[in-house]
C-alpha cells in the first residue's frame, strides 16, 4: 500500500468514527485545511517531474474529493442524528383541545331568504323593500282591499296607536309584504321584476302561528306576462329551492283582492314515514298564494293596466324553511334558544348560490 492509500484509509476511518461535528471539523482541517496533509502534498507537486506531477496530482485530487465528500456525508448524518434526538424529546399531547374559537351561526330565516334571493336573482328579479309600519292605504286600499271588505277583517291587523288629534286612520304593522308591490311599482314603473322578503305581522299566536313571521313577495310586470309564466316561474323556483329534479304544482282557483285570477298553489309531496318528500307521493301541500295582478292594483302603483300585465305571489319564508329543513315549531324561530340556533343554524360561509348549490 503506498502513502496515498494509507492517507486515504486513515482519514476515511477517522471520519466514519467521528462522534460529533467538532471532531469532524478537526479531521477536515488535518486533511484539507491550509496546512492539512493533503494540502501539503499538493504543494510538493511543484518539485516533481511533469510525468510524476501528472499522476500524483491526479491521485491527490481524487483523494481530496473523496475525503471532502465523506466529511459532508458524515456531517449530514451527524445533523440528522442530532435532529432525531431533539425530536425524540419534543412531544406534545396533540389530543389536547385546540385554542377555543367560537362558532357562529346564521338563522334559518336569513339563510332561506338568501336562498330565495339567489334563485330569483338568477331569474332576473331584484330585491325590493318597504317599511314595516305601513299606512292603511299601502297595506289595504292600494291592494284593492276596501275599508269594509271582509278580507280586511280577516287580516288580524296590528294597529299603531293614533294620537286622537290626528285625523288620519291609524297606521298598521304590515300584514303582508304585498304593499312593497305598490312601492316598487311607484319607484320603478314597468316593466319590473322584484321579490320583497321581510317581516310581516298578524295578531295570532298558537302552535302554528306567531304574531310576527316572514314572507317573500314576488312580482313580474311586462307586456304579455301570463299566469302560465307564473306557474313556470314557481315550478322553477320550487325545483331549485327544494333541490329536487322534479316538482308538480297544482293551481287551485282562489280569491285574493289584489290578484285576479287568483290561485292557491299546492305542491305534490309525500309524508311517508313522517318525512316530507317534495315532488313525489299522493299528497298536496299548500305552499303559497298567487295570481295575475288586479288592474286596480297596477293603477294604484301608477302603471297603466291596459298596457301592462303581470303576476304576483306571496309565500311564507318561515314555512318553506320549516318544510325544507324539517323544523317543527314556528314559535321556536323567535325564541333564540341557543340549542335551537346551533342545531338549525347555518355556517357563516355557507352562502347559498345557484352555481354552488343552495344547501350542503
Amino acid at each position, binding site marked *: 500500500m503506498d502513502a496515498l492509500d494509507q492517507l486515504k484509509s486513515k482519514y476515511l476511518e477517522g471520519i466514519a468514527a467521528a462522534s460529533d461535528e467538532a471532531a469532524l471539523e478537526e479531521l477536515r482541517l488535518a486533511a484539507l485545511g491550509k496546512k492539512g496533509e493533503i494540502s501539503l502534498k499538493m504543494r510538493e507537486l511543484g518539485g516533481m517531474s511533469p510525468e510524476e506531477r501528472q499522476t500524483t496530482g491526479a491521485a491527490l485530487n481524487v483523494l481530496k474529493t473523496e475525503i471532502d465528500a465523506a466529511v459532508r456525508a458524515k456531517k449530514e448524518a451527524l445533523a440528522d442524528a442530532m435532529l432525531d434526538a431533539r425530536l425524540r424529546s419534543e412531544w406534545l399531547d396533540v389530543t389536547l*383541545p385546540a*385554542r*377555543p374559537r367560537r362558532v*357562529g*351561526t*346564521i*338563522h334559518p330565516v*336569513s339563510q332561506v331568504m338568501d336562498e330565495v334571493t339567489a334563485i330569483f336573482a*338568477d*331569474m*332576473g*328579479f*331584484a*330585491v325590493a323593500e318597504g*317599511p*314595516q*309600519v305601513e*299606512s292603511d292605504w299601502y297595506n289595504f286600499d292600494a291592494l284593492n282591499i276596501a275599508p*269594509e271588505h*271582509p278580507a280586511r*277583517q280577516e287580516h288580524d291587523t*296590528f294597529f*299603531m*296607536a293614533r294620537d286622537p288629534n290626528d285625523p288620519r286612520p291609524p297606521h298598521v304593522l304590515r300584514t303582508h309584504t304585498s304593499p312593497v308591490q305598490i312601492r316598487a311599482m311607484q319607484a320603478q314603473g314597468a316593466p319590473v*321584476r322584484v321579490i320583497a322578503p321581510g*317581516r310581516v305581522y298578524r295578531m*295570532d*299566536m298558537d302552535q302554528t302561528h306567531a*304574531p*310576527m313571521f316572514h314572507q317573500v313577495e314576488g312580482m*313580474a310586470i*311586462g307586456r*304579455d306576462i*301570463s*299566469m*302560465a*309564466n307564473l*306557474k*313556470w316561474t*314557481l*315550478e322553477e323556483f320550487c325545483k331549485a329551492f327544494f333541490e329536487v329534479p322534479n316538482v308538480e304544482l297544482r293551481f*287551485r*282557483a*282562489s*280569491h285574493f*283582492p289584489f290578484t*285576479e*285570477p287568483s290561485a*292557491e298553489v299546492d305542491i305534490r309531496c309525500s309524508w311517508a314515514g313522517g318525512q316530507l318528500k317534495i315532488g313525489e307521493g299522493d299528497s298536496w301541500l299548500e305552499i303559497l298564494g298567487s295570481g*295575475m295582478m*288586479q*288592474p*286596480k292594483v297596477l293603477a294604484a302603483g301608477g302603471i297603466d293596466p291596459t298596457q301592462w*300585465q303581470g303576476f304576483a305571489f306571496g309565500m311564507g319564508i318561515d314555512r318553506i324553511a320549516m318544510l325544507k329543513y324539517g323544523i317543527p315549531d314556528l314559535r321556536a324561530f323567535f*325564541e*333564540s*334558544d341557543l340549542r335551537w340556533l346551533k342545531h338549525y*343554524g347555518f355556517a357563516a*360561509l355557507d*352562502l347559498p348560490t345557484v352555481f354552488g348549490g343552495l344547501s350542503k
Partner: protein
Amino acid sequence: MKFTLSWLKDHLDTSASLEEIAETLTDLGLEVEEVVNPAARLAPFTLAHVQHAEQHPDADRLRVCTVLTDEGEKTIVCGAPNARAGITVVLAKPGDYVPGLDVTLGIGKIRGIESMGMMCSERELELSDEHNGIIELPSGAVGDKYIDWLAENRPEAVDPMIHIKITPNRPDALGVRGVARDLAARGLGVLKPLQVDPVPGGFDSPVKPVIDADLKARGCPVFAGRLIRGVTNGESPDWLKARLTAIGLRPISALVDITNFFTYDLNRPLHVFDAAKVRGDLRIRLAREGEEILALDGKTYALKPSMMVIADDNGVESIAGIMGGEVSGCTGATTDVFLESAYWDPITIAATGRALKINSDARYRFERGIDPAFTIDGLELATQMVLDLCGGEASGITVDGAIPDTARAYQLDPARVISLVGMDIPAAEQQRTLTALGFTFTGDMANVPSWRPDVLGEADLVEEVARIASLTKLVGKPLPREGAGVPQAILTPLQVREKTARRGIAALGYNECVTYSFIDAASATLFGGGADATRVENPISSEMTHLRPDLLPGLLQAAARNQARGVTDLALFEVGPAFTGGEPGEQVLQAAGLLVGASAPRDPWGSRRPVDSYDAKADAEAILAAIGAPARVQINRKLDGWWHPGRSGNIALGPNVLATFGEVHPKVLREMGVKGPAVAFTLWLDRAPFPKVKTPTRPALVLSDLHAVERDFAFVVDTSVEALTAVNAAFGADKALITDVSVFDQFTGPKAEEQMGAGKKSLALAVRLQPRDKSLTDADIAAVSAKIIDKVSRATGGALRK
C-alpha cells in the same frame, strides 16, 4: 258552508261521484275542507238475525244470543233489553271499528262466555242518540250491508256532508244552488230549473214595512213581507230536520227551520216575526242611543245610532239583517207569522255585526252580498213551504222600497283572457262558461247576474273563465329573461351591506337571532323608546306593546332566557330594523352583537376570561371594515343611556355615529335580569358613507425598496388620557413619513403609579417610518423622533418616559 250530497242533487242533475264532486269543488275555488261520509264509517256492518236468546247463566241483565250471520251462526252476549229471538239486527264483528264507542271490537269473554261481536244501537253507530236498545230492522236479509239498507230505507242517514271554504268574493256560493251552478258550468251535471210559483194573497197584510227615507238610499233599499195566518208551528218533517242536522244546525220549529233552510239552500236569509206580538207596522230605521234588544241568542245588545233595526210600536224587534229579537220570535204557540225578505247594505251590516260581535248566518251572508233580485222570489218560495209544512193562509206581499239596480256589463275580450291566463280557451267556450254562470251577452258585453256582487270589471270575467276552465290544467310556460346574457347585480348597496354584516358577525362566532319587532314598554323605555308613537294599539300581550327602539333589548331578553336554562356564555346577534317612530319609514337597519359571560370555555391554555369592551370593539371594527367604513374614525363618548358611561364608546365620523360598543349599563342588565358581564355593539348599517363613484379599480400599489424603520416611544401621561390622542398626535408629527402608529403597551395600576406618580400611566407607541426617496440617516430619525415626542407630549400633557 256545509251541505249534503242529496241536497246538492236537488239543484244539480249529476251522476258524478262524491270524490269527483269534491275534487272539482276545490279546483273551482270552493275549497273542500271536509267530507263526512257516514257510509264509509258504517261500511263494515252487516245485517244478522237473532235465532235464539237465552238468559246468561251468571248475569241477570245479559242474554246469550245465537245469531245467524253471513258467516254462519255465532254466539253473541248482549245486554240490550230488546235482544230477543226473531229480530233483524245490525252486527259488528271482531275487528270492526264502532264509531260511537270509539273502539275496535275484539273477541270478548263476558262472564265466562265468548261473544263473537256485538249488535249495535243507533248511538253506537252515531246515527242518533237512541240507546235504549239495539237496532231492530223491519226488513233486510242476513248478510246484507247495513249501508245498503240505509240507502234504501233511510237515505239521509248515509248522505255525505261536504264542508267547503267560501272566499269573501263568493256570496253566491253560500247557497247550495250557487254551488250547483258552479259545478254545472264546469260540466259536472245540469243545473235543475228553479220553479217559482207566486202564492196568491188572500188578504192584505195588516203589518206593513216602512223604511226610513234616508235608509232607502243606502241601508235598506227594499223590504218585502207578508202575513201568513192560521199556521201550526210544530216540528219540521224528518227530511228537513235531517238536512239541518247534517250541516250542524239544531232543528227548532218548522218556521225557524224554514228560514234556516232558505239561508243555506238559496242563500236567502229570512226572518219570521210572531205577528201576534208585533204592534203596528214594522219600521226600518237607525237605532236610537240607549236602545237595546234581547236577541234570539238570549243576549241583550246595546244598540248604536249607526245600526239598522226593525222596530214596531213596542220598540226594537230585530237587529236588521243580523239577528231577530226574542220578544217577537216564533214559538210553538205562534199562529200568525210575518215573513220578512229584505236586502240590507253589506257595509252597514258588516260594521254592526263587528261592533256587536254577532256571528250569525244572516250577517255572514248579508255582509258579503246576497242576490237583491231574488227578494220577492225567495219570499214566494218560502211562503209556499210555510203553507206546505204549517198550513195557514197567506196575505198579499207588502213591499216598501225597490229592488236596487245592479245591472252592469263588462266587455269580454277573449284574446286578453288568453293573454292573461296563458291557456288557449276558445272564445266560444269563454262565452259558454259565463252564460252557464248566469251572465247574459249583448254583443261582447257580458251582463253580470244579480247574484254576483263581486264581479266589478273585466278582470273578474277573466277569473270566472279561468276558474271554470280549471287552473289545475294550466301548463307552465317559461318566463323569458328581460335581457340576454349575464344578469346584473340585483342587490342595493345597503342590501349587500346587510348580508356582509350578517355573515361577518356570524363568522366572528356569534349566533344569529331573530327576535320580535315588538317589546314590552319597560324594556322599550330603557332603550330610549316606549313613546306613544311606537305603541301598538292592540298588542297580543303585555310583552309586545311597543316597537323596539333598538335591537339590544331583544338580545338581552334572549340572553336572560338562555341564562335561565343554565347557558352562561353567549354570543348573540341580530340584523334587522329598529323603530325610531310610528310613521312608515321611521325604521333603521341595525346590526347588534351581545357577548355575555366568558370569552371561551375553560381549557388548558387559560383562554377563559370575562368578556370586555375591547372584545366588542374588535368585532364592531371588524364589521365596519367589512362593510367598507373608513379606517380613520373618531371615538367619542356621547353615549346613549343604556351604555356604561366609562367603558363604552362611539365610533364616529364627526357627528355621524357609525357604531357604539362597550359594556351594557349595569342598571339595564339588572332590570332585564341578565347576569353580567355583558358587552355589546350596535352598528347602523346605512350610516357609513357609500362610495360616491363605484369603480373596481384599486389605486396603484406604491412599494418602496427602502427599509422601513420602527421606533418605540413610551410616554408617562395622566391615567385619563386616551390612547387615541397620543396616536393621532404621533401621526401628525410627519404625515409623509409615518405610515403606522400602534399602541403596543399600557402600564397602569398601583405599581405603575408607584413608579411614575399618582394618577399616571405609561403608554407605549410603536411608530413606523417609511422613507420614500432616500434611506433615513440617524439624524433624520432623530429629528422625526423629537417631533413625535414633542407633539405627543403637548397633546397629552405627558412626557417621554425616562
